[in-house]
């Protein structure tokens, strides 16, 4: 699947570490797909599998996010700056249900609920790691 322009979803993006890493991330491992690396343009998707869905439960926050498995490609766009990055699904996450109704806003645009987790490489391509969350739109 290509990094296309068909709207898939929108919400909050967060970031996480995976693969070999330093500090507390050293124990993160390769993620649900076994291929996750912090330095790669990758993402965790809350419906990467049925088992993944049972953990993240975005439906409890009103997000009926479609299934996209390991290897799926998406374009993630920062809703205010317009910066975008193409990522490959390589893990399961974020745990949407733990932060229902949380929102991130910029320039009057607000996105609610955590719908995608980006690796540091991917997140830093469109925003600052020190912000923690970004409002994004996702395409495929």
């Amino acid at each position: 699947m290509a990094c296309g322009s068909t709207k898939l979803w929108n919400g909050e993006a967060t970031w996480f570490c995976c693969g070999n890493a330093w500090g507390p991330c050293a124990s993160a491992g390769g993620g649900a797909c076994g291929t996750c690396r912090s330095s790669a343009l990758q993402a965790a998707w809350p419906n990467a599998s049925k088992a993944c869905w049972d953990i993240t439960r975005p439906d409890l926050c009103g997000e009926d996010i479609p299934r996209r498995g390991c290897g799926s490609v998406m374009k993630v766009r920062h809703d205010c700056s317009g910066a975008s990055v193409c990522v490959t699904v390589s893990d399961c996450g974020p745990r949407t249900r733990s932060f229902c109704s949380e929102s991130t806003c910029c320039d009057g645009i607000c996105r609610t609920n955590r719908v995608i987790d980006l690796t540091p490489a991917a997140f830093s391509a469109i925003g600052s790691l020190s912000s923690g969350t970004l409002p994004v739109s996702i395409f495929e």
Partner: protein
Amino acid sequence: MSVYRTGDPLDRRHFLTAAALRGATVIGTGALGTGVIGATALGAVDADAAFAAPIRPLDPAVAESAFAEGRITAINDDVLEVAGSYGDHSRIRVTGATSVWKARATTAADIETGDGLYARGLPLPDGTLAADAVWVNIVNLHATIRGIEKTRLHLAHGHHEIVGNLMAETTNAAYGTASPTADLSRLAIGQSAQVLGAWRPSDGSVDLVRVAVPPGAGRRR
């Protein structure tokens, strides 16, 4: 939550590239230990502002931005020698236009051997990466609050316990959709929390910058 604003990213990129290629930094004596980075003619250089807008190459022939991560093994003048987590090696060049974050927006003088980092910048012909932003020791962890003391939190992250250091005038809490506040009194044992902070290589603890808990979790009764 965060809002990013900045000046013209193309101007910033041009400055960064030019500074690196000319070897002309605004780092005091040219050594990281004595230098000052943080103010340029381009305006704010804190990490958030640095990434406010997409950074596009000035010329199609110029490579897109690159990313590097790892631990600093040596600091030679304005170049950080970095051992990547997969056995790779990077050389990160810090210029006058580089934003540095280490628990806060700071200067390159705070960067030490042994620190971990994520860096973003332009690959240069000499093999270095001219960084436009460097995040030192930054971590962003999903954890559960297991204990609360006056000066620290005890956090469970996966199967590991992490000590989170509360820093006066720095640590804040975000309760659901409310703006971050210095009031930490609504943090409670058992809460899920997203923890953003700076890892301390010396003891493995984390200096807490922001502890975000889900909406409703910190509501006053």
